[in-house]
C-alpha cells in the first residue's frame, strides 16, 4: 500500500525548541491522528510538510513526490485547514471561490457551492461576519473542493461546539469513503480521534514517542491501578509510564506482560497521552 505521506528524519531547531528526527507515515486510505501537548511540535511538523518553514534535515514525500522539488504538484493533492490561517476578513465565499479557482487546476466550483449550501453559508456575506464555526466550515469546504487526496488539518474542531464538531467529523468520514483519500489531523480533542483515527502519532517535546495503529495501541495498553509495591514488582518492560500518589500508583502497562488476574482497565488515547506526558517513563 503506498503511503499518502512519508516523513523521515525531520528536524528543525529554534532557540527554545527543536523538532528532532520526526518520522512517521500515513498509509493511503487512513486517518492519522497527530497528538501532543501544546508546544510539542505538531504545528511545526505540519508547517514543514507545507514548506511554511525551512527544515534543517529530513525528507517529506506526499504520494511519492518530494514536497520541495515538486511543491506545486504536491499542493494540488493536498487540502489544508489551518487553525491560524484563513481568507482575508473582507472576502466573501464567492471571492474565496474566485481565488481558489485560479489557484487550483482541479477546482470544483459546483462542489464548493454544494458545501456552502449544505453548511448554510451565504456567498456574499463577508467572512468577518461569520461565526468561528462558519469560518472553519468555509475552510473545510475549500479544502474538499479541489479533489484533494490528502487532507491536512490543524485543530479543525478547536473551539467548535459539539454539534458542529460532529458535522465536521461526518464530512471527514465522507471524504474517507474513497480508499485513495487520507487524512492527517492534528488535534487536542482526542475523543474525535477515538471516533475516526486509524493511526496515532504522539509527539512530545519535539520527538515522536510512538506512531502506531490506534486499535493496536488500545489493545496493547491498559491502565493498572495498584500499590507502589505491586508496581515495583512488575517487569519494567511491562510498564510504559506510571504515576505514584499518596494512596497508590497507576501505570500504563502492556497487557500481555502483566500477571494474570491483575485488574487492567481499558484505556483511551487521552489517558495514553497523559501518562506519556506526565508519568514517569
Amino acid at each position, binding site marked *: 500500500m503506498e503511503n499518502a505521506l512519508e516523513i523521515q528524519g525531520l528536524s528543525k531547531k529554534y532557540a527554545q525548541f527543536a523538532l528532532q528526527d520526526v518520522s512517521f507515515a500515513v498509509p493511503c486510505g487512513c486517518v492519522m491522528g497527530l497528538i501532543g501537548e501544546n508546544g510539542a511540535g505538531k504545528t511545526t511538523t505540519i508547517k514543514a510538510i507545507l514548506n511554511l518553514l525551512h527544515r534543517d534535515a529530513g525528507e517529506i514525500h506526499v504520494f511519492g513526490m518530494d514536497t520541495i522539488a515538486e511543491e506545486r504538484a504536491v*499542493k494540488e493533492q493536498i487540502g*489544508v485547514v489551518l487553525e491560524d*490561517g484563513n481568507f*482575508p476578513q*473582507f*472576502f466573501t465565499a464567492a471571492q474565496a471561490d474566485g*481565488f*481558489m479557482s485560479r489557484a487550483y487546476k482541479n477546482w470544483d466550483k459546483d462542489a464548493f457551492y454544494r458545501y456552502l449550501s449544505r453548511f448554510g453559508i451565504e456567498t456574499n456575506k463577508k467572512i468577518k461576519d461569520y461565526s468561528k464555526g462558519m469560518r472553519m466550515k468555509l475552510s473545510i469546504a475549500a479544502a474538499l473542493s479541489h479533489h484533494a487526496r490528502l487532507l491536512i488539518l490543524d485543530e479543525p474542531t478547536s473551539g467548535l461546539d459539539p454539534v458542529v464538531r460532529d458535522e465536521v467529523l461526518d464530512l471527514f468520514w465522507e471524504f474517507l469513503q474513497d480508499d485513495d483519500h487520507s487524512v492527517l489531523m492534528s488535534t487536542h480533542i482526542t475523543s474525535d480521534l477515538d471516533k475516526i483515527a486509524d493511526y496515532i502519532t504522539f509527539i512530545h517535546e519535539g520527538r515522536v514517542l510512538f506512531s502506531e495503529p490506534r486499535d493496536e495501541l488500545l489493545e496493547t495498553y491498559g491502565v493498572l491501578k495498584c500499590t507502589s509495591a505491586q508496581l515495583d514488582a512488575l517487569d519494567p518492560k511491562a510498564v510504559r509510564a506510571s504515576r505514584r500518589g499518596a494512596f497508590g500508583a497507576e501505570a500504563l502497562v502492556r497487557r500481555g506482560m502483566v500477571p494474570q488476574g491483575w485488574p487492567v482497565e481499558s484505556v483511551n488515547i487521552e489517558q495514553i497521552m497523559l501518562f506519556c506526558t506526565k508519568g514517569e517513563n
Partner: protein
Amino acid sequence: MKAMLYADWAVLKQTMRQMLIVFIVLTLAAVTMESISFIYMLTIMLMIMVPMTLFAPDPTVGWERYSLSMPVCRKDIVWSKFAMSALFAGVLTVLAVLVTIAFAVFGLDKDFVFNIAGLLFCQGIGLLLSGVVMCMTVRWGTEKARYLFMAVVWTPILIGFVISKMDLPEIALVETIQQASDIQILGASVIALVVGVLLDLMFGAITVRIYKKKEF
C-alpha cells in the same frame, strides 16, 4: 500568479475608494493654491501606501500562511504585489496627467511641459520608494517598515528644508535646470522614470529573495 493578482486586486479595491477621494479633495486644494506640484507629491505618498495596504490583511488572519499552503509560489506572491503597485501608479499617473491638462487649459499653471516632466520625475521617485517599502515590509513587517520608512524619507526632506532656509549661493544644478530647454527637462524626467522602474524591478528581485527565506 492569477490567483494572487485576484486576491491583491480585491485587497487594493478596499482602499482604492478612500485613496481616490483623498486625491480628489487634495486636487481641489491644489486648485485653490494654484500649485500642481502638490498633486505630484501626493501621488508619491499614495504609491508608498500601497505595499503596506497589500500586506495588511495578513497579520490578523494568517492569510499569507494560508495562501502558501496552496499551489501558489512565493515568487508569485511578491510579483503580484509589485504588479498591483505598478497598476496603481499607472492609474495615478493618468489622473495626474488629466489634472495637469486641466490646469493648463484653465490657466492655473500654463507650464505644461515642465509640469509633465515633474510628474514623470515624481512617478519615478514613487516607484522607487514603493519598491523600497515593499522590500522593508516583507523583511520587517508592516509596523517596523512604516517607522523605518519615515526615517528614510523624512531625513533628506528635513535636511533639504534646513538647507533651503540657509542663505547659501545657488548651486550649479539649479542653474542647469533653469537654463535647460523643455525637451532636455522632459528627456531627463523620462530617464528618471525609467530608472525608477528599473530600481523598482531590482527591489522586486531582492524582495523575492527575502520572501523565499521567510518562515511562517
